[in-house]
């Protein structure tokens, strides 16, 4: 598999796994308005998934379309970051995970506007409109929960502390990233770290939350297909019908 295909799968898998997670909140959110907002985000991400995976399938040239890629790969062939497969937990866990991701996603998409690959730039432009709103919303909720009641602050701080060690993976450069950056297709992941830290620190401060150490030990491996135990179950559920009825059209 060439580097660009791998890179596109990383983007698509991030959006897919996170969208799948958010879908689990259907009808179970803390308020009706929140249910709708969360589903909006899930839908936006699913749309982005389809754009990235379709492109990846075309480039690969092995006849795999978006569904073949989403429903036919085992966990070790998924390249999403570890953060996205961490459990939904309570609403603070979900929204902190969302905020950490949205912030990275926003800076990435902004940089991708200048991609030497026209199609990537086009997808990035469309997605950026959606993600700009996602980031505003999740950051706003982190502030409200952090600077809310004692209980909400405790839950939000807990989520921040728990998920912090998964945030480093976004900024690790590997061989694929280096090759893609050399071609001008995408920025080096490490180049996004400071803007991300700046924005996250600002929001955490406004939220009256304690920021974890930026140089804490970080988990890694998702981008290379080494996942947590959560992903297997998530995929088993997601892929069941296609696996049980191979070749069927739906």
């Amino acid at each position: 598999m060439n580097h660009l295909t791998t890179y596109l799968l990383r983007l698509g898998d991030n959006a897919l796994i996170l969208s799948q997670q958010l879908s689990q909140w259907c009808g179970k959110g803390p308020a009706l308005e929140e249910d709708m907002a969360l589903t909006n985000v899930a839908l936006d991400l699913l749309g982005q998934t389809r754009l990235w995976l379709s492109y990846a399938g075309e480039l690969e040239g092995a006849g795999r379309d978006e569904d073949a890629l989403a429903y036919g790969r085992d966990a070790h062939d998924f390249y999403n970051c570890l953060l996205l497969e961490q459990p939904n937990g309570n609403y603070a866990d979900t929204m902190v995970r969302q905020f950490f991701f949205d912030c990275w996603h926003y800076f990435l998409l902004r940089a991708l506007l200048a991609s030497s690959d026209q199609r990537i730039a086009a997808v990035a432009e469309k997605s950026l409109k959606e993600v700009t709103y996602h980031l505003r919303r999740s950051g706003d909720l982190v502030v409200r929960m952090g600077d809310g009641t004692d209980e909400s602050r405790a839950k939000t701080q807990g989520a921040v502390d728990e998920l912090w060690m998964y945030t480093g993976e976004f900024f690790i450069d590997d061989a694929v990233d280096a090759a893609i950056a050399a071609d001008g297709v995408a920025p080096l992941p490490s180049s996004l770290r400071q803007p991300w830290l700046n924005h996250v620190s600002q929001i955490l401060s406004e939220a009256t939350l304690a920021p974890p150490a930026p140089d804490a030990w970080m988990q890694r491996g998702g981008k290379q297909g080494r996942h947590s135990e959560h992903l297997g179950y998530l995929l088993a559920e997601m892929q069941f019908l296609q696996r049980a009825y191979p070749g069927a059209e739906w």
Partner: protein
Amino acid sequence: MYAQMVETGLKQVLTQDDMSDEERRFQASIDAGIRIEAKDWMPEAYRKTLIRQISQHAHSEIVGQLPEGNWVTRAPTLKRKAILLAKIQDEAGHGLYLYSAAETLGVSRDELLAALHAGKAKYSSIFNYPTLSWADMGAIGWLVDGSAIINQIPLCRCSYGPYARAMVRVCKEESFHARQGYDIMLALCRGTPQQKAMAQDALNRWWWPALMMFGPSDAESVNSAQSARWRIKLFSNDELRQRMVDQTVPQIAFLGLTVPDPDLKLNPETGHYDFGAIDWAEFHNVLKGNGPCNRERLRTRVKAYEDGRWFRDALVAHADKHIDKPVAA
């Protein structure tokens, strides 16, 4: 329907002699087709009946997200997943429009939710049945939303303005729901033998509950008669049910499926389909809480509400601390 068997609190339909001058003027407005709005004077019984009807409808939309939410993580293609998510989101939106309409009558959403969670307020019987296969997503969109459309289109002309307007908005979005359900069934019936069997099985399980959605025959019902006089119920349960059967039987035939009713046949004299006996004992039991999924549905809603309390309280606390917070442009 989504609001089945709504109590008016009256023992008989009000006659002109029963009414005060105000009530007579109110009834005259209704008879003249004038819309009643939130600030207008209205009889207490009208107001209470509307609150019950609209809130039952709203509760139905919200609980209705759960049987479909059950399959959204297992949708068999990304496109189907997106469509189903959009439909579920629409349902949340419909619930919101309807709670808004109910709140114009002087009741708060929290009060309405409290009644639902305590088992005092009802929601449509149909949502107490389990979704067991992907084909159920097709059956629900096609039969359940299809039935809802039949009920809701007349309500766009009902006498209470906010409810009628909510119905207009809902109806525009609902036709997408029915079509996407039928589209799923088409794909299954054109697919493998296993898929077609899945479709037939779903139809077998959802057909009768869908017919029950319209409620029992209300020819003798005082509630229905009074609601009709108030123009908040425009057709009888039997009329609507017949409409649903007549329009759906050809759709079933086109799919190459069988209606799970050996007594179903076209009546050449009436031009309508005669159908078999409905098990009203099942219907009443389901409404009472004895359906396959009542407890689960209610527990899920109560849990979501209770688990979310800290979040809602946090947002209130934050807003209170920042009364003068500037709004981001």
